[in-house]
């Protein structure tokens, strides 16, 4: 008798929670669009900054190397939350939330991406550059036509981790006022009538993120295979992505 009651309780709880998920789904999906847009923008910005930073660290004169190294270490050591609030509240930069988030996340990601590209560039043997110079290519041409095409290919697996990492990090964008996927769920959960009924809601949010990370990683795997060149692969330990 007691057990039957318990079961009924669970069923009621489940249907109540799923109902909330159903009602919230359109809101969550429009939040998902913002999350995806932000991820793409910040990755592009990060990429644009990271390539010169990596090249500066490897081929630049000593002061530039030091500067780029400091840039990388600084942005890697400070939590993204602190960077976000420092930019918006500390520096009082008044931009639309999406733009603020894209800028801060982009710069933060550029530090990680530059480390990825630096590793890939440094894994290419110096003989490649010697051979390029020996047929008369300039230093810049050697980097452009020989080093970077190889480095970008080698960097894809690590870069795929960075994608997954920044996608998850975008859940911190609420600190600059952006209402993306996770924050939409938080707002729904904050309705007084929804208290204690949001397990399924947040679980759904988690699943959406899981789908996004998995899809993106698969896509990058496909790209990596598409551009793979026999013998030109990199073997590393477990690469990291966090968030």
């Amino acid at each position, binding site marked *: 008798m007691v057990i039957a009651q318990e079961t009924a309780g669970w069923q009621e709880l489940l249907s109540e929670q799923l109902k909330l998920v159903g009602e919230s789904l359109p809101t969550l999906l429009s939040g998902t669009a913002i999350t995806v847009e932000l991820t793409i923008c910040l990755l592009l910005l990060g990429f644009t900054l990271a390539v010169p930073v990596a090249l500066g660290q490897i081929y630049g004169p000593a002061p530039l190397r030091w500067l780029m190294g400091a840039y990388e270490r600084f942005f890697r050591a400070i939590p993204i939350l602190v960077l976000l609030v420092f930019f918006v509240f500390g520096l009082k930069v008044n931009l639309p939330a999406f733009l603020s988030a894209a800028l801060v996340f982009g710069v933060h990601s550029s530090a990680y991406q530059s480390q990825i590209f630096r590793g890939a560039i440094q894994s290419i043997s110096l003989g490649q550059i010697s051979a390029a110079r*020996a047929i008369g290519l300039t230093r810049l041409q050697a980097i452009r036509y020989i080093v970077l095409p190889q480095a970008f290919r080698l960097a894809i697996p690590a870069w795929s981790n960075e994608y997954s990492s920044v996608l998850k990090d975008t859940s911190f964008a609420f600190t600059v006022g952006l209402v993306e996927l996770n924050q939409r769920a938080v707002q729904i959960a904050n309705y007084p009538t929804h208290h204690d009924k949001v397990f399924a809601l947040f679980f759904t949010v988690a699943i959406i993120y899981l789908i996004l990370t998995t899809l993106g990683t698969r896509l990058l795997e496909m790209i990596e295979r598409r551009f793979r060149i026999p013998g030109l692969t990199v073997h590393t330990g477990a690469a990291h992505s966090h968030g």
Partner: protein
Amino acid sequence: MASEFLVRIHDLHKRYGHEEVLKGVSLNVRPGETKAIIGPSGTGKSTMLRCINRLTDPDQGQIWLESTEVTAHGVDLNKIRQQIGFVFQDFNLFQHLTALDNVRLGLMKVKNMPKDRATELALYELKRVGLEHKANAYPNQLSGGQQQRVSIARALAMEPKLMLFDEPTSALDPELIGEVLKVMKTLADEGMTMLIVTHELGFARSVCDEIIFMEKGFIVEQGSPEQLFNNPKQPRTREFLSKLSELYGESPA
């Protein structure tokens, strides 16, 4: 004034840290000559070769390619390097490019040749080394000997006046050495000017006009193959040659 020499090297010095690897080397090469540089490892042979196209910068001394001083300040290195083919011990084929693209890249990017013309020329060079059928293979799909032949084609495509070979067969399995030496012999027969750092004494003897024995940063002895192999003047040369024939069971004499 036109010189009778294609390459003149005068009093070349190079040091790495405390170690002086070149202690004043002078050498002249006439057009069409093939010279082999032999000697123990780590005696500056490769360094000298790399100084000629300035992949390594000498500390002191001059090098001329015809009437251009390669070692002069402000010289257009890329112009000079176009005229000098360089073949590396470990091939250094561009790993992300096919054999055809390896040969074609310099033509298109350095000589600004249109793609179809560059392709035509690259295929011709690949044919010269017997690899036109491997045009679309990536370096890792080729054997070591094939890779080295592609790298020779890559250098030849730039139509160099001089070819430098830095131990071109040292990284190869014994059974692959022959195909590379054969290509090099053909080149010598066609009148290409070549400087070859090598341990292949048999090849040096049969193909080269002159043998240069280097040790400890100096040229110890130089002369025709007959003279140097049959009748070395310096005791050190004799010692080196006998050691080599012990090692490889091969007597160049």
